[in-house]
């Protein structure tokens, strides 16, 4: 569903993503790992059509992001890392705006979609509150709600459980794995246990380059004596003290 080939993205003189390639199929939950600044978010921004790649391609469902941006955007639900919404809007107003922007026009359709995500993301209690008054956990759930609102075949979630308490993390993970069967999901995270619990594939990138692409089990099997985050450190720590 998602194909990334030889993706390179430069910010001025800095190369943020350096020749990353991978494929995500229906049913996959791909965990995107890497230290801060490794190029995770940049890769996700290119796939979602927000940034243009310097070279290389990204395509969704056969549509190239550069050539058919709107077709790609229709098929993707995207949770940005900044997760910025419009602070003065209430949750309902915001989700209605997203639904309209997603092409739902009739009142029934919009209410139908809203009711669905409000239940799924447990937003009933705060639906009439303005977003600026929400706690970080609720804001994050509003972000997830707008991403899954149109039931997209592809989900790109940049740190979906960031800022949530353990119970909420559990809820969001449950939500994601329930949707996984008929979707292709890419999520980035810093929490290695999340990858173990949720993903069937792991990609680690470091300094813009893909370091590994395998299953969580294979990653663990690299050195059975070590814990997962120790393996992660070994793979990505090489250049820290240079």
């Amino acid at each position: 569903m998602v194909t990334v080939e030889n993706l390179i993205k430069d910010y001025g003189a800095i190369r943020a993503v350096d020749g990353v390639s991978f494929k995500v199929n229906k049913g996959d939950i791909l965990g995107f790992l890497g230290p801060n600044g490794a190029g995770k978010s940049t890769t996700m921004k290119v796939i979602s059509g927000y940034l243009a790649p310097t070279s290389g391609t990204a395509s969704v469902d056969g549509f190239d992001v550069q050539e058919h941006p709107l077709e790609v955007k229709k098929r993707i639900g995207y949770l940005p890392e900044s997760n910025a919404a419009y602070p003065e809007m209430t949750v309902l107003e915001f989700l209605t705006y997203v639904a309209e922007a997603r092409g739902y026009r009739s009142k029934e359709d919009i209410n139908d979609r809203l009711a669905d995500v409000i239940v799924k993301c447990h937003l009933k209690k705060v639906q009439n509150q303005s977003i600026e008054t929400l706690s970080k956990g609720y804001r994050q759930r509003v972000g997830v709600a707008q991403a899954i609102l149109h039931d997209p075949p592809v989900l790109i979630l940049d740190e979906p459980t960031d800022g949530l308490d353990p119970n909420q993390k559990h809820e969001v993970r449950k939500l994601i794995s329930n949707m996984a069967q008929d979707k292709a999901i890419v999520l980035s995270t810093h929490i290695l246990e999340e990858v173990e619990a949720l993903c069937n594939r792991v990609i680690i990138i470091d300094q813009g380059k893909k370091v590994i692409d395998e299953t969580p089990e294979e990653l663990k099997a690299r050195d059975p004596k070590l814990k997962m985050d120790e393996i992660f450190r070994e793979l990505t720590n090489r250049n820290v003290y240079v």
Partner: protein
Amino acid sequence: MNQVCPVFKKEFFGYFRSPVGYVILAVFIMLLTGLAFFTGFYESNTANLDTLWNFLPWIFMVFIPATGMRLWAEEKRSGSIELLFTLPISITSAVVGKFLAAWLFISLGIVLTFPMAITTGYLGNPDWGIIMAGYFGSVLMAGSYLAISSVCSAMTQNQVISFVLSVLICFAVTLMGSDILLSILGGLPSGLLDFIGNFSFYIHFQTITRGLIEMSALSFFGLLTIASLAINIVILKRQS
């Protein structure tokens, strides 16, 4: 293009979700009608709105950048632009939607000066065609000021810089062809002065408020607005 509507709705009602929109409208109307009253609305003894229109370009110069400064700068600062441009909305639709919303907001401010027109009608016997032409010209000119402000807003993520920049540009285009500038540039050949005057908002607006809806004024404001919005789209495209 049917994606203009959601952006337009979100943006237009956004002005009324915080007190800012109400404050801007109130200050605009008080300033404009106040200035008209104190500079001879009654004393002139003529049944028209010339005293109102006289100050309009100078008030627009500040009021419209204040309305337009948030259009893009705010989205960029908060990061919500990332959400906007990952929704299936083209840059063109977003630019047009935001522009139309702010334009309607400003037009609302202009229309709310209607008590002045009613007062004129009560006290005298004005030519309603000329008064309507004045309102039409105001809305048209507002579009051009706003398109300039929108470009400035797209260039930065700082609303203050966006505001100052667009006030400067709006000041320049208003001043061109005004008596003040002409007297300073008195030594230049008159052909050149006429040429400069062709770019003046003030002069084109004055023609319309006299009841002459000329092709030159219509195309001046119309083309300037469209050209600015096109620049706006190019700037946003280059930033992605």
